[in-house]
């Protein structure tokens, strides 16, 4: 049972990664590693900024 759960977690984590669900976590990790003095964006601010930047640089989707 434990193994099934762990397997499912891994799968969900993978799909989440493909969808980009972990983008904020990665941003925080980068922010910390690069030693900024300013506080990072909050989760809400980060996602707003992310979609708003997509407005300015659209990416094609394939046929």
């Amino acid at each position, binding site marked *: 049972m434990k193994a099934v759960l762990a397997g499912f977690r891994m799968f*969900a984590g*993978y*799909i*989440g*990664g*493909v*969808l*980009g*669900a972990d*983008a*904020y976590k*990665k*941003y*925080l*990790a*980068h*922010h910390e*590693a*690069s*030693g*900024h003095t300013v506080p990072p964006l909050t*989760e*809400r601010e*980060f*996602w*707003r*900024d*992310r*979609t*708003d*930047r*997509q*407005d*300015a*640089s*659209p*990416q*094609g*989707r*394939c*046929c």
Partner: protein
Amino acid sequence: MGTMPDGTQGGSTHRSLRGTAQLDDGFDPDPSLPPTSVDDSVRDSADRTWTPAKIALWAAIALLGGVAWFMLAIIRGETVNAIWFVFASVCTYLIGYRFYSKVIERYLLKPNDRRATPAEYKADGKDYVRTDRNVLFGHHFAAIAGAGPLVGPVIAAQMGYLPGTIWIIIGVVLAGAVQDYLVLFFSMRRGGRSLGQMAREELGVIGGTAALIATLLIMVIIVAILALVVVNALGESPWGVFSVGMTIPIALFMGVYLRYLRPGKVMEVSLIGFVLLMAAIIGGGAVAGTEWGAAFFHLDKVTIAWGLIIYGFIAAILPVWLLLAPRDYLSTFMKIGVIVMLALAIIVVRPEITVPAFSEFAGRDNGPVFSGALFPFLFVTIACGALSGFHALIASGTTPKLIEKERQTRLIGYGGMLMESFVAIMALVAAISIDRGIYFAMNAPVALTGGTVETAAAWVNSLGLAGVNITAGDLAQTAKDVGEQSIVSRSGGAPTLAVGLAHIMQQFIGGTAMMAFWYHFAIMFEALFILTAVDAGTRVARFMLQDSIGNFVPRFKEHSWRPGAWLCTAIMVAAWGAVLLMGVTDPLGGINTLFPLFGIANQLLAAIALSVCLAIAAKRTALKYLWIAAVPLAFAAVVTITASFYKIFSPVPAVGYFANNAAFAKALADGKKSFGTAKTQAAMEAVVRNTMIQGWLSIIFVVLSIIVIVTAVLATIKALRNTAAGLPNAEHEDPAQASRVFAPAGFIPTAAERDLGAEWNKLPAGQGLEKSGHH
């Protein structure tokens, strides 16, 4: 479309050249860190050591693949089992990946893991983020795979299964995957620059401008024809209209949820969206079953086309968070789920295929589904899945900014395209698993089938196809099974694939009672991919147009300037909308005349991308290995230019746009009231107008592409001459910077990579991460 801080030219070039040489020599800049790359000699010797187990494994793969090809191509009994398609393709992909892509890596691209990738040296935590290779593989695959590989193989099945199968499998190994890999690698070396920017740098102003205009026009055509596929799938289908229509409020809800209620909960909202989507499909059946529902959602194709045009404009000016981003999540989610499920179903069900290897139409040029001879038209009909130029736009977009290590480009670029090719093979299997009579009744234009089950059955039986004998009852029953009013002349590929998929899936889960659900499930996900592609394509095209106009009227370059953005969006929507309406109202059967244009456009884009790659490759390798890019380029160029010439110059009206134009113009001049499949004078005038536009589009595409190819060949010759004379070539790569991270290259780490990874894991936490301070 990344903006490039290009301040690092001039003086730094010299330093960077020395840096590159040092990095290439195995120089590691930071002795406190473990090596950032497996030692070249260790990797080489591992590659070249053939243990008995390894030999046995590859011999088994080769043998299984060989047997599978033998079963498909030589044996050809009464039926062939679908499992052989799976074995033939997967074994060929494995061999292509293990051997051919390594040749490209070793002799042409020469990736160097000591060099930092853009995700490392430009890391910003937002656009440039190092991403796990297996996650990025899924991400890249989701971005390149859409409705294309699902539609083309279905239409090409007219000629039998073998021509399409050979082209999809061999084409991807030698052309499609090569293009994706090269573009991804070259863009990565240039900080993630777009194909357009690379064309401008490598081919100069003329070649670059021609490439830009061609790309813009090709995008218009591709969006229009994808939209046409949706219109054909939803026309006169209340169930489809309801459930696909419901995706809009579902996406809006998801957008609001992510923006205001629970920001960042992407998985959660995707699951909610998925459940709502399933509810919309099931609810669609109930709604279409009621009298008011059937009446209200029963829309003709012209109405749906107008709806799609209005939708396209609004969707492209709405903020991304509201509609595009949430639907993107939904579409990615569905894409992975559906493809895994279809693969499982084919392996479990293993349907018997009765379609012949070469059909009666393989040797003729007047097939009802698409006209033209096998060469070149089969090769343009199946574009996505074998060689798709559109991928070059993706491979030079987001993906290169996320790659962790240079060597991973082989897995993601080459491997990702193999995966898409497999999707195309599965679509082909689904399409040929249904009865051939039903296939032709569904895919021929109304002008031939007459639109009713009786006339369609009579027409199909009159074709004299071996083993084909259908009754009006068969067609009516199939329509009833999938919950549609009619399946006659539901051209465009999507409905046929949906019937095939429903046919296979019901044997896997649910039985005949579930067929209608599976059918509308298939229609739904295809529509979802296409709506996302239409919306994103309109946006990208709008930006390209704004940038181009901005060269004359600077104000247009400000992307936030509303009037400019709205005007350019309206122009792009009007452009593809006009082609869409032309296709919907075409008396000759829109998809049947327009689909070749789609394939030609897509592969001309591939020729453009490969031209740029050839010009770049010429600077970094000797003539000896240039064939890696030159062979697929030559093939794509010959196929598309020949196809274009047929479309422009062929005297056969069914093939040549202008021949058809002349025939109809003459009939009008003679005062005829109807001609061929056009039953009224207005219809005849429509044909004259449409063929003229299609003909001129063909001319413009082919001329622009020839300009790009010629400028690329000139740039290639110049680069080779420079090399021969010992002169340096202009280098547009970003300066080399030393990497400070390590990650394995392939799906499964090698022994040497595992050892090195263990060394990195021993570092104290926090060390080994980039400490870039640029903000």
